[in-house]
């Protein structure tokens, strides 16, 4: 165990001992789907938790439970947190949606925040990031850089968030490269390094030279590094340890400002149930440094695209766009509304294969 961790534990124990006196201390709970050391999704949520601690010091106490399976066990974990005195609980995976709603009904005094879901209640807010904005930039780079014209995409579960990412990346890859094809593999897990690595290898063997992933670990990048001459992107976190290898850029989730704002709201008594969906503009989605492997002109285009999205001049889902079956989805210049995006269950025209249900 690292010294810093030991000290934190000691400080925590001390905090518990004196906690009886300091009743104004706000207890904040975090429920994670993977281990905090996954290097991706959960890692970034935990960085947000640490930012909350740094911001409020001894006015807050944070607790977290990692590697919580999406299912009934999640309800047990949340219930335990609420019983232990947590007044604000962040549940950070799509599959925690129904458990969060169920537990929230039992604890009306506890505030809940569910990431990436769409069900709200008086004491349940939802928040998510417009990852698809980052996917547009990835798609642009992928379409420009692929030589085999095959882009491999590792999906986790066929839910709207993931499908949105696939569509956004595909639209922007096709825009710059009409011959590009996407090969999509569903891993049916958020976190299983061996399976994610196998999926990446299979895609590479079938000719993909760009790997996009929507799973949480760095395993696909490790597999890409092993294969050589493959590019990939950091997912959820910068994954910059692979920057001298396959990683050419990344989508970084920056939850810290949101977490700090929400904790502040509970402290001030101004918390209300809200629905937050922020993108590159407000800074919830960050684009990791684009490495020198990307040609300078492509990098400039990618950054211009990023700026246009950030300023609101350009929406990644702007017509004319057709659905996979050829029917018209968006007319020329029309922009997708958030409702359609949140429930997206179709591929856009040009993607092969069907979405499992």
């Amino acid at each position: 165990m690292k010294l810093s961790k030991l000290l934190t534990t000691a400080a925590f124990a001390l905090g518990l001992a004196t906690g009886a006196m300091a009743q104004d201390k706000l207890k904040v709970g975090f429920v994670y789907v993977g281990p905090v050391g996954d290097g991706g999704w959960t890692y970034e949520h935990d960085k947000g938790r640490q930012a909350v601690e740094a911001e409020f010091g001894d006015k807050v106490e944070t607790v977290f439970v990692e590697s919580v399976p999406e299912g009934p066990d999640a309800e047990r974990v949340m219930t335990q947190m609420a019983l232990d005195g947590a007044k604000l609980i962040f549940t950070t995976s799509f599959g925690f949606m129904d458990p969060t709603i169920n537990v929230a009904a039992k604890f009306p005094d506890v505030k809940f925040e569910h990431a990436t879901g769409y069900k709200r209640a008086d004491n349940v807010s939802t928040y998510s990031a417009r990852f698809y904005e980052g996917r547009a930039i990835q798609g642009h780079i992928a379409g420009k850089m692929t030589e085999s014209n095959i882009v491999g995409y590792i999906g986790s579960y066929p839910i709207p968030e993931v499908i949105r990412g696939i569509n956004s990346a595909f639209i922007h890859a096709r825009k710059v490269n009409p011959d590009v094809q996407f090969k999509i593999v569903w891993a049916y897990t958020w976190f299983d390094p061996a399976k994610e690595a196998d999926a990446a290898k299979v895609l590479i063997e079938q000719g993909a030279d760009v790997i996009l992933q929507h799973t949480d670990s760095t395993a696909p990048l490790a597999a890409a590094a092993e294969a050589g001459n493959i590019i990939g992107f950091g997912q959820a976190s910068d994954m910059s340890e692979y920057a001298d290898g396959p990683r050419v850029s990344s989508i970084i989730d920056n939850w810290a400002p949101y977490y700090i704002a929400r904790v502040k709201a509970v402290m001030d008594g101004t918390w209300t149930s809200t629905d937050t969906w922020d993108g590159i503009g407000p800074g919830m989605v960050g684009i990791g440094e684009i490495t020198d492997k990307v040609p300078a002109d492509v990098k400039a285009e990618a950054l211009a695209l990023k700026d246009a999205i950030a300023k609101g001049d350009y929406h990644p889902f702007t017509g004319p766009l057709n659905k996979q079956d050829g029917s018209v989805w968006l007319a020329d210049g029309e922009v997708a509304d958030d409702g359609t995006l949140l429930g997206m269950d179709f591929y856009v025209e040009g993607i092969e294969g069907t979405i499992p249900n």
Partner: protein
Amino acid sequence: MDLSSINPILLLASLMVAATPLLLAAVGELVVEKAGVLNLGVEGMMITGAICGFAIAVNTGNPLLGVLAAAAGGAVLSLLFALLTQVALANQVASGLGLTLFGLGLSSLIGQGYQGIRPPSFPRLNIPGLSDMPVLGRILFSHDLMVYLGLIIVTAVWFMLKYTRAGLILRAVGENHEAAHALGYKVVRIRIMAILFGGACAGMGGAYISLIRVPQWTEGMTAGIGWIALALVVFASWKPWRVLLGAYLFGGVTVIQLNLQAAGVAIPVEYLAMSPYLITILVLVIMSADKSSAPASLGRVFHASR
């Protein structure tokens, strides 16, 4: 659908890679069970081996030392099981389950600080002439050394069990420990050695995942392969060649189903995802229709005073 995008040569090659951790763990457990001991701690020994091997490989820069450390780590953990079940005569099922839980916890403790690090890459076999052969070279002669080590261990175990005196004694201990004891064989000592061998094999299987197949360390990365290895030994009727067949089948179908998905085959993904389990069980159950059965003393406690 575009089946032509599946390259059969690469498919066969990656099949061997996907099967190796399972093969190593299963053949180790086979020896343990042949000696009459049921060790359900395979998953725990694998994940412990995975982090021990990873840590040593990173710190020394030598992946082969890492594999040795993984074998040692798995063996040391299995020694705990041996002490509990062979010396303290504890229940084997409970001790084995405890070993898995302990191994998972221990590994994430050791693994603090090893996330996001890349291990030194593993040497591949490269025999001039053989490795360059058009088709067979890629399938058979250009893997990492561990793939061959797995095959060598299976062959050695098969040979030992079938043709050597040591194998005969091991089987005697597993079939009827009281008779073996009456003949003057050291039942407990033989079983402890078998348990250590099983632990070492499981540890190497785990290290194969963390050093070669992924390669990186993340908590819980063996993700249930140890349990599959346990089931495989039973379905393979405690026969080394069937373990090999089962492991390759399982690894093969796993890789094939991902390939079929990537090629856009119109089979629902859910069925593809369950196919490795179904097909492996089906084939091995059909094969085990002959009269082979479990070692008679499997899971029974032996005490010399009786």
